[in-house]
C-alpha cells in the first residue's frame, strides 16, 4: 500500500480494508465525508471522523443515510471531494440521491461494504448481493461506475482510482467491497506502490455549469462561491440548469449522461488478467471471491491444469473488451460469486456459446478453494 516511500528492506504492516479505504480517500484528496453507522461500514465512518479534520476537511455523522448523501452532494458542489460509506440497507436509502448525483453530474465516491441481504439480512456476514443493485439502484437506468477491490492493497488503490474516475466523469463511483474485505486484517507491504497523488478537479469559475457538446464531453465543474452565480438542479435541464421539457435539450442531456461513460469504457476498464496460452477454462471472479479463485488457480496449475484467471476490478461498465480478449480459445467459464449468479448473467451475455458455470453461495460462508477447483475440473 502506498503510504510512505522507503528504500530499506521490505516492511509490512497488519491492516484491514477499512484503513486502506480511509487512507486511499485522504491521499486522493477527500475533504468531506458524511455517513450513518451501519455494520460492516461503520469503521470507515469512525476513522473518517478522526482523520479528515487533520487535513482541514469535515466529517459528519448524518441523521440518516439520506441526509449523509445530501450533505455530500452539497459539499461536492462547493468544490470538496466527497465520500460516503454504507452497506446494502443504506444503499437502499441512498437510492434517490444516487439519481441526483447522476443528474447533477456530481463527483462522489460511495463505498458499499456488502453484507448478506435482503433487508437487515446478516450484518456481520459477507455477501456479494449488491453487484446489480449498485448499478441499477436508482430510477432511470443511467450508468454509474463500480470498482471492486479483492484485497487490502487494492482497497487502497481502487479507492484512489474511484476518486479519479468520479472527477474525470463527474458521476458517482461505487467502491463495492464487503464485510470480509473491509474487516479482515492482512499483512501487506508498506512500501509497495508509491503514494497516490490525488487528481485535481477540473474546474472553471464562470459560465454555464453544463455542456453536452459533443455528447461525451465532460464540462469542468463550477463551485459555489467562486466566480459568478450558477445553478444546479435534479430536474431535466438546459446548460444553465434551468428546468426544461424541451425535447431536444432533454434528449441531449440524457444522451450525454450515458455517452460520457459508455464512450470512454477504455478509460475505466480494469481487470487483473492472468491468462495461460492454450487454456480452455477461465475463472472470472471479483471482490472477496477472487481470493479463493486465485488460490484455486495456483493449486490447479501446480497439478498441471491449464487454466486462466481474470479478476474484474471495474464491474460497471462491464469490461467487455478485456473479457472478449480473455475468452479467446476458452470453452468453459467458471464464475464464483456470493450470490446466485448476479454477475455471471453479464458474463453469459458476452460468452456466446461458451459454457458458463456458476459457483454460488448465499449462506454467509465464503466460497472455498475446493469448490472452485471442483467446478474447473
Amino acid at each position: 500500500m502506498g503510504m510512505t516511500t522507503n528504500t530499506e528492506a521490505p516492511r509490512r504492516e497488519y491492516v484491514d480494508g477499512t484503513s486502506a479505504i480511509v487512507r486511499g480517500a485522504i491521499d486522493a484528496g477527500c475533504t468531506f465525508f458524511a455517513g450513518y453507522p451501519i455494520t460492516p461500514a461503520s469503521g470507515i465512518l469512525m476513522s473518517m471522523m478522526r482523520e479528515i479534520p487533520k487535513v482541514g476537511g469535515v466529517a459528519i455523522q448524518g441523521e440518516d443515510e439520506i441526509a449523509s448523501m445530501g450533505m455530500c452532494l452539497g459539499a461536492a458542489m462547493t468544490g470538496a471531494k466527497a465520500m460516503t460509506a454504507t452497506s446494502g440497507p443504506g444503499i437502499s436509502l441512498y437510492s434517490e440521491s444516487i439519481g441526483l448525483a447522476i443528474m447533477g453530474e456530481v463527483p462522489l465516491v460511495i463505498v458499499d461494504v456488502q453484507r448478506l441481504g435482503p433487508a437487515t439480512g446478516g450484518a456481520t456476514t459477507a455477501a456479494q448481493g449488491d453487484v446489480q443493485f449498485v448499478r441499477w439502484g436508482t430510477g432511470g437506468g443511467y450508468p454509474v461506475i463500480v470498482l471492486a477491490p479483492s484485497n487490502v492493497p487494492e482497497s487502497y488503490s481502487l479507492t484512489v482510482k474511484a476518486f479519479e474516475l468520479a472527477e474525470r466523469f463527474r458521476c458517482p463511483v461505487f467502491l463495492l467491497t464487503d464485510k470480509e474485505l473491509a474487516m479482515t486484517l492482512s499483512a501487506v507491504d508498506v512500501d509497495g506502490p508509491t503514494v497516490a497523488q490525488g487528481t485535481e478537479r477540473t474546474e472553471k469559475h464562470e459560465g454555464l455549469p453544463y455542456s453536452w457538446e459533443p455528447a461525451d464531453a465532460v464540462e469542468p465543474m463550477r463551485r459555489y462561491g467562486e466566480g459568478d452565480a450558477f445553478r444546479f438542479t435534479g430536474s431535466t435541464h438546459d446548460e444553465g440548469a434551468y428546468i426544461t421539457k424541451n425535447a431536444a435539450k432533454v434528449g441531449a442531456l440524457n444522451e450525454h449522461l450515458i455517452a460520457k461513460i459508455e464512450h470512454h469504457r477504455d478509460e475505466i476498464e480494469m481487470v487483473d488478467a492472468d491468462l495461460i496460452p492454450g487454456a480452455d477454462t477461465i475463472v472470472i471472479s471479483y471482490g472477496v471471491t477472487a481470493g479463493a479463485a486465485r488460490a484455486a488457480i495456483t493449486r490447479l496449475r501446480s497439478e498441471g491444469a491449464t487454466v486462466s484467471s481474470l479478476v474484474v476490478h471495474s464491474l460497471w461498465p462491464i469490461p467487455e473488451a478485456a473479457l472478449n480478449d480473455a475468452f479467446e480459445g476458452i470453452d468453459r467459464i467458471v464464475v464464483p460469486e456470493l450470490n446466485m449468479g448476479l454477475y455471471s448473467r453479464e458474463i453469459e451475455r458476452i460468452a456466446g456459446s461458451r459454457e458458463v458455470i456458476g459457483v454460488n453461495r448465499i449462506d454467509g460462508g465464503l466460497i472455498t478453494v475446493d469448490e472452485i477447483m471442483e467446478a474447473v475440473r
Partner: protein
Amino acid sequence: MSAITITPISTFRTDDPYPFCPGCGHGPILDRLNEAMIKLDLDPAKVVIVSDIGCSGLSDQYFITSAFHGLHGRSTTYATGIKLANPDLEVVVIMGDGGTGIGGTHLISAARRNIGITVIVMNNLNFGMTGGQHSTTTPEGGITPTTPFGNLEHPLDICATVGVNGAAYAYRGSSFDSDLADRFAAAMEKPGFALLDVWDLCTAYYVRSNKFTRAGMEESMRSWGFEPGLLYDRDAVEYSVGYRAAHAAIIGTPVADALPVPVDYPNNLDRPMSLVVAGSAGGKVRSASRLVALGGMRSGLWAAQRDDYPVTVKSGHSVSELWIAPQEMPLMAVTSPDVLAIISSDGYGKAGPYLGAMTPDDLVLTIPEHSDLETQARVVVIDPTSAENRIPKTSMGLVYLSAALAITDPYPLDALREAAGAGSFAEVNLEAVETGIALVG
C-alpha cells in the same frame, strides 16, 4: 477626481415573472426575500438558494443567486453540506410544508446542530402542486382530496419543533406581514439555524376547499394554537464554526499511517498454517489472534485473520480464522485448520465443520467441558484451573493459542512475547502467553 460610488445591487430577481397561481402567497414571500437580500447588500455569487420539490421548489429559478434544486424534503441536507464545506456562503433554504413533512428529521437535526442556514417554509397547508392533498401542517378538520371528511391529524408546529431542539431563531408569520423582509434579513444575519414558518394562501386548493382567507389567517393561527411572531431567539455556537474550533488543534497533524512490524526472528514454516480460535464475544478472541499474527510477522511470515461474530457486542460466539504463511496469500476461508482452539461453549457451537474436516496431523486444544468432541485430529485437553494463576476470560484465547504455538513451533515464542509486550494490555498479555506455554510445557 470623482468619488467612487458603490451601487448596491438593485434586485436579486431575474426578469422572469413567477409561475404561481393568481393570489398565491409564494410570489410575495419571494419578493420579501429579494428585499431582504438587497437590504443586506449580499453578493449574489455568495448566496446559494437551496430548494426542493413542490411549488416552492420553483422559486430558485427566479433569482440571480446560485441555486441548488434537489429532492423532496432534502434541501436542508444539501444546505448543511454546503455550509459545512464553505461557511462563507449565505445559504437560504426555501421549502414547502410538504418538504417539511417528508424531511422532518433533517429539519430537527439541522436545528440541533445549529447549522448556520436560513430556512423559509412557504406553508400553504397543503400540497399545492400535486392536487391539494393534506400535509403535516393541514389544520385539524381541513378538507383536502385526501381528507375529504376532514383532517384527523394534528398539524405540525414547525417553529416549536425546531425551537425546542436548538434552533437559534424561529419566527411564525404570514405572507401578508409588513415586516417580513426585515424578519428574513434578521434570520439571515443570525449566525445559527434560523427558520421562518410563513403561512400563505393556496388559491388553487386549500382556500377553495376551506373558505380560508387572508382576513381569517392570523385569527385561525391563534385559535389553532399557533402563536405568530418571533418565538425563539438565542445565541449559540454555529455548527461549522464549532466544528472548526473543536478540531483546530489537530489540523495539520499526521494522518494515521502505516505501523510497520519489525522482523527480528526466523520462522519454521514452509507452507501456510491455519489456526482457528473459537470462543465467545467479549473474550478478546480477535485480539489474541491478532497478537499471534503479529508474532508471525515479527518472524517474517505473512498473516491474515478473518473474524466471525454476531451483531451483539459482548454475547454470542467469536471465531477467528488465522493464516500465517511464508508467502503472501490471497484472502480465503479456513476449512480444515492445522490448529483449532476451543475456549468456550459458544466457540464449541461453531467448531463442528472444522472438527469434521480435520485430520490426524492436526491439533485441537479444548477446555475440559468439550473433551468428548469428535474429530480425527489429535486432541489436547487443557484445564485452565490447573494454571498457576487464575486465567481471566479475556485471556483464554491468547493462553490457548500460546499453548498451540508452544506445541507446533511455527515461529520462536520470543516473537510472540515481543508482540504481546508491544501493544496495549502488555502486562496481561505477556502473562497469558507465559501461562499458555507453561500449561503444555
